[in-house]
């Protein structure tokens, strides 16, 4: 392998250097230019368009947030952090944050458990595998806004199917719209409806990548199926679980469609009991207040919050990833000694950290370790 990957020019080619430099024709110049410029040309549409429509608006949100700025009147004077003060003083803002987190927690945790369970069921040698896989994906093609409308009806306080079923088994009907926690539950059910099957397929793919000899070894060691699931499958798909949790939290904290048509007015209920933060931002900008400055302040704060939670996720994930599933506990002094020995053996070459779990996902490793010229 080492001989194949060498990028040094073959020694024989060095002979060319002794010759006097040959003058380049126009087409050769063009070709050289082609080689140099093309790579940048091909990536430029992404960077230009993303810069204008992705990055610039995000950064400019900060500028809008420190100005008086209305939907109709346009830019006003510089007001410093006044907009932030105003927003932080509004009880609805805080309420919307609590609602968002509550809905997010109610949707993410159960969804994770159910999706992994479905994936484990699909990971067996079932008949008509494609049929079942397509079946769990059907909700994905229903627009969230339609889901909002449909579930608003399913969870109707009167003549809703859910309440009818509760009454059928002798339970009290739940006020799915007026009760705060109940409404959060209903809204997270919409999120779960659309994304559980999708995530189950992601987990299924990860499970199928688990080397089968691990299961054989576990069977020989006498582990039952449940034990195999918790001691082999779950640790092996850990990276995928982290990936799903991070994407779910970025999306979950920006929830909007699902709440928008949950009732007639779509502003989070009479007491704003299920108003989410993005819905609040929408209402401030295009609803009652028509205040872009304050809405930008909301957006900016939510952005920082999402970044913060992303970082926490990342740190927790790294912690989990770097401590092996069943790694024996070793004293720190022992580790230190081993590290020193290893360093001495490796002659100070830094090198990448050896992965502690044998089978991480294939992604990310291929992109970073390539060398340019």
């Amino acid at each position, binding site marked *: 392998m080492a001989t194949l990957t060498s*990028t040094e020019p073959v020694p024989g080619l060095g002979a060319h250097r002794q010759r006097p430099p040959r003058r380049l024709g126009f087409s050769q110049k063009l070709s050289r230019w082609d080689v140099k410029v093309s790579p940048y040309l091909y990536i430029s549409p992404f960077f230009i368009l993303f810069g204008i429509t992705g990055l610039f608006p995000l950064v400019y949100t900060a500028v809008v947030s420190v100005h008086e700025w209305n939907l109709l009147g346009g830019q006003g004077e510089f007001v410093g952090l006044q907009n932030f003060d105003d927003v932080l003083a509004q009880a609805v803002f805080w309420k919307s944050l609590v609602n968002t987190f509550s809905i997010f927690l109610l949707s993410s945790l159960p969804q994770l458990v159910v999706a992994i369970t479905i994936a484990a069921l*699909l990971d067996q040698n079932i008949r008509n595998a494609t049929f079942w896989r397509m079946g769990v994906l059907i909700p994905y*093609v229903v627009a969230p806004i339609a*889901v909002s409308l*449909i579930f608003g009806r399913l969870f109707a306080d009167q003549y809703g199917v859910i309440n009818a079923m509760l009454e059928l088994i002798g339970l009290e009907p739940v006020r799915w719209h007026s009760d705060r926690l109940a409404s959060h539950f209903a809204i997270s059910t919409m999120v779960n409806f659309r994304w559980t099957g999708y995530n189950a397929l992601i987990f299924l793919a990860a499970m199928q990548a688990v080397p089968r000899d691990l299961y054989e070894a576990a069977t020989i060691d006498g582990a039952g199926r449940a034990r195999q699931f918790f001691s082999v499958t779950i640790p092996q798909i850990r990276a995928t679980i982290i990936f799903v949790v991070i994407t779910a939290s970025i999306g979950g904290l*920006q929830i909007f469609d699902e709440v928008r048509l949950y009732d007639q007015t779509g502003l989070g209920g009479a007491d704003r009991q299920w108003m989410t933060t993005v819905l609040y931002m929408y209402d401030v900008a295009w609803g009652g207040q028509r205040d872009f400055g304050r809405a930008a302040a909301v957006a900016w704060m939510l952005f920082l919050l999402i970044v913060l939670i992303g970082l926490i996720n990342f740190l927790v994930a790294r912690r989990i990833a770097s401590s092996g599933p069943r790694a024996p506990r070793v004293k720190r002094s022992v580790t230190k000694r081993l590290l020193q020995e290893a360093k001495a053996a490796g002659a100070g070459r830094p090198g990448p950290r050896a992965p502690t779990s044998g089978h991480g996902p294939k992604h990310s490793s291929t992109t970073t370790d390539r060398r340019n010229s």
Partner: protein
Amino acid sequence: MSSVAVIAQTAGKGAAKSAARRRRAANDSHGAGSAVRRPGWVTYAVLGLVLVLSVFPLYYTLLLGSSDQVSISQSAIPQWLPDLSILERFSEVMASTQINFWLALANSTIIAVTVSLAVVLFSTLAGFSFAKLNFKGRGPLLVFVIATMAVPTQLGVIPMYILMSDLGWVGKIEAVIVPSLVSAFGVFWMTQYLEEALPYELVEAARVDGASMFRTFWSIALPAARPAAAMLGLFTFVQQWTNFFWPAIVLGSQNPTLPIAVQNLRAGYHDDFSLIMGGVFLVTLPLLVIFAFVGRQLVAGIMQGAVKG
């Protein structure tokens, strides 16, 4: 002369790549196909329940659309089987000037098709460049692309609205199309795919034969990228077709897409759930039909995306 330098530099890599590919293929065929036992009925029962729960909301929409307003206001499930009376709701929704169904269908189609094609083209171009060409700053730029996948750009809607209003695009579909033309995920996805699927030897051969960079892309990279490009196009299509937040802000109810038409239904028919649900089913139907044909590919796409990132 310079192309020779590129080839000399990459020849080793290419050979290494193909060697790695061969080894991986050997591993795969060796590892699979050991478990053959069929699971018991419990598995099918649970999966069946999941399937029922996945389909029931849509079936219920069909039921409400098939019954009339009076019976809906008297019982949670007015009837157990849908009937053809839903076609009357369809025709009423199609004829309504408040809903603008046909305009919404046309807008959604134009937006989803244009954006899918553009995302596929730009992502493949950038993916080809990142995966197979050498240039300064490639590593950091690719890291930047990956990092932007985690950025909640949805939160930039306010400056975006100001921008669109300055351009005079508020209420026009350009305002929805232009910001969606590129996708960080698309670039990442195509880069990953082309690294594996496009052998260096092929690129080198084209260059030796005198093909320009763009010719190499068009005749070598693009055909090789076809499977991944199809998946990317499919997912972009579904995503655009179901997108609501930004279109609702910038287009408004007068020039709707199909998701905005759903909102118009709610506003237009108040509590007539027979018509509302009939309309919702009508709006959902196109994507369900498409799903019947390409559902298999969507499943495969999600499962490949999981392994590759």
